[in-house]
């Protein structure tokens, strides 16, 4: 039996690992693209119990967008992700939203890769809070119950997107407050954008973009993961604790946790 194929098999395993490790080293080399201090609101530890089959520790990135209806769900369509922005992201928007074949035309368009900028506890969050509190006040005047959603909400807000990460960084240069993350953006035709009290004619169909997916699971290695290890009672203690995480994004826009401090 010739040994060339055996050598090839070994080489494939070793080369694949070499590529991956070199990639990781390149990402972490030099000046990071961003370094943010996030709290348990933005990087949530879901935790696992003693009988979990996976002992790895993962933090989950939580973020919001400000949509027209002020629903702080991550799948909501940001106001700034409109038709003109979608066009710059490579979507074909030539058919008018109120055209007869618009629904089928836009349904066929697949989500596209892009880069999204998130701002932590900045002007976007403050605008969000102000608008939300105005809405809450209006609801209270109508006799609706008080809403406390914002109290534990993440302060990380999606503010912009672009096909080119460098252009996005040029527009948002504050590396201590804005992080740029690879994401997937989808186009959708909202045939009845609302608000609920409006009429259909006052609210014509509108093109919207949705941030569908981004790498939101951040693995923690030892020794930092030791801070979260533990089951039973310790599990509840950890998941309700306050902590601050120093998160870095490298040159290749992949994150790692530099430090964690427990406490308010």
């Amino acid at each position, binding site marked *: 039996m010739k040994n060339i194929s*055996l050598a090839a098999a070994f080489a494939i*395993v070793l*080369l694949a*690992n070499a590529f991956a490790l070199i990639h990781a080293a390149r990402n972490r080399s030099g000046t990071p693209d961003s370094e943010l201090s996030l709290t348990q609101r933005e990087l949530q530890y879901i935790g696992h119990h003693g009988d979990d089959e*996976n002992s*790895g520790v993962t933090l989950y990135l939580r973020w919001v967008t400000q949509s027209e209806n002020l629903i702080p769900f991550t799948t909501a369509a940001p106001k700034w992700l409109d038709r003109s922005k979608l066009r710059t992201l490579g979507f074909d928007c030539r058919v008018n939203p109120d055209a007869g074949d618009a629904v089928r035309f836009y349904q066929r368009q697949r989500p596209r*890769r892009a880069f999204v900028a998130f701002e932590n506890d900045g002007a976007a969050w403050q605008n969000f809070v102000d608008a939300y509190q105005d809405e809450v006040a209006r609801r209270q005047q109508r006799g609706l119950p008080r809403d406390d959603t914002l109290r534990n909400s993440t302060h990380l807000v999606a503010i912009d997107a672009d096909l080119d990460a460098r252009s996005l960084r040029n527009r948002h240069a504050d590396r201590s407050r804005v992080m740029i993350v690879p994401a997937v953006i989808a186009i959708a035709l909202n045939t009845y954008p609302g608000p609920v009290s409006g009429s259909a004619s006052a609210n014509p169909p509108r093109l919207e973009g949705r941030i569908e997916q981004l790498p939101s699971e951040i693995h923690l*290695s030892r020794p930092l993961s030791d801070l979260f290890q533990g089951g039973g009672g310790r599990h509840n203690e950890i998941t309700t604790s306050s902590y601050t995480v120093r998160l870095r994004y490298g040159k290749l826009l992949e994150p790692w946790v530099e430090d964690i401090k427990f406490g308010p």
Partner: protein
Amino acid sequence: MAVERQAHLDAQLAARDRALAQQAADRLRMLREELASGEVESVLALTPDQRLRFDEWSTRRLAELAERFDVDTTVSQKRVSWGMRIASTLGGIAVCAAVVLFFMRYWGYLDTWLQLLIVILTPLLSLCGAERMARRERTRYFTGLLALVTIASFILNLVVVGTIFNIVSTENSMLAWGALALVLAYRYGLRLILALGLLFLIGYVAAAFTARMGYRWLEFWDRPEQFLLLGLLVFAIPLLLKPARQANFAPVFRLVGALTFFLAVLSLADWGAPSYLNWDARNVERLYEFFGLIASAGAIWLGIARNWNGLVNTGSVFFTLFLVTRLYHWWWAWMPKYLFFAAIGALGIGLVLVFKRLRASMIPANSAVTA
């Protein structure tokens, strides 16, 4: 002269793989059984001396084949071998699951350098184990099991490295997995590993194309026409390239290619919206339904013409699926249900009669006279 001819045959056989040796043993076993039957004896009467020499030669020949290639020489052995293949495959899958789950259970308590060391060494050690077993056994049951473990641990390897460093996943991992599977398949003559490798590489090509177009690579299944073309390409590889050492790999290429092709057509026949064709979804579905019917009928014809049993079976299954799907769309909504199933049954009977006629027309003329 006979000795020289036998030596030449032996050299030919030794140069090929175990599958051909098994075919030779099967033919010889069936010949012995036929000669022993009373019906053949009435037509082909061997003298006692000829019979004795044939029995001695065939017994010796089967023993040689069993000795050299570890082939099955009886029907019972074949059944046991099938059981061993199934057991080794299932055992391999279970061992893979155990390795992965064991690692996931305890990796969080290990330092990064140790995690990396374990995940990189595991596929290399499995590979060493597979190589060692391949040099010791001819039947390759344990070799196949360890090759499967090598693939699974390599998958775990790259996934864990990506998780540790929060690397954004790309389609390139599938290229590495597929390449390793192909190398192992050709080195050890493992058809299951070959099929796995082909599936990885089909997935990689589709994912790479999807990523280059600016979409998320994980949605490579979103446009089934990609798999239509890739399936055809894989199917055609044995026709375009000369067979290498492993002569029994061609059916695997054909099966993987045909399944990929027909599953893509079936998915578009069921739901036409993801098609590249910018038509109404219903029209796309109808197009692919009829295309599927024609293509599967063509596969049956090609399989019969080329004596490719696997292709005949695959074509038959999908022909039935496409036909039933089409009839369902035509009749289910308005036809009484009992009548629908009666019509399907009648159609099935009709197909059996057609195939029976087709089969009769294939019987050579002189044997038809005696029948």
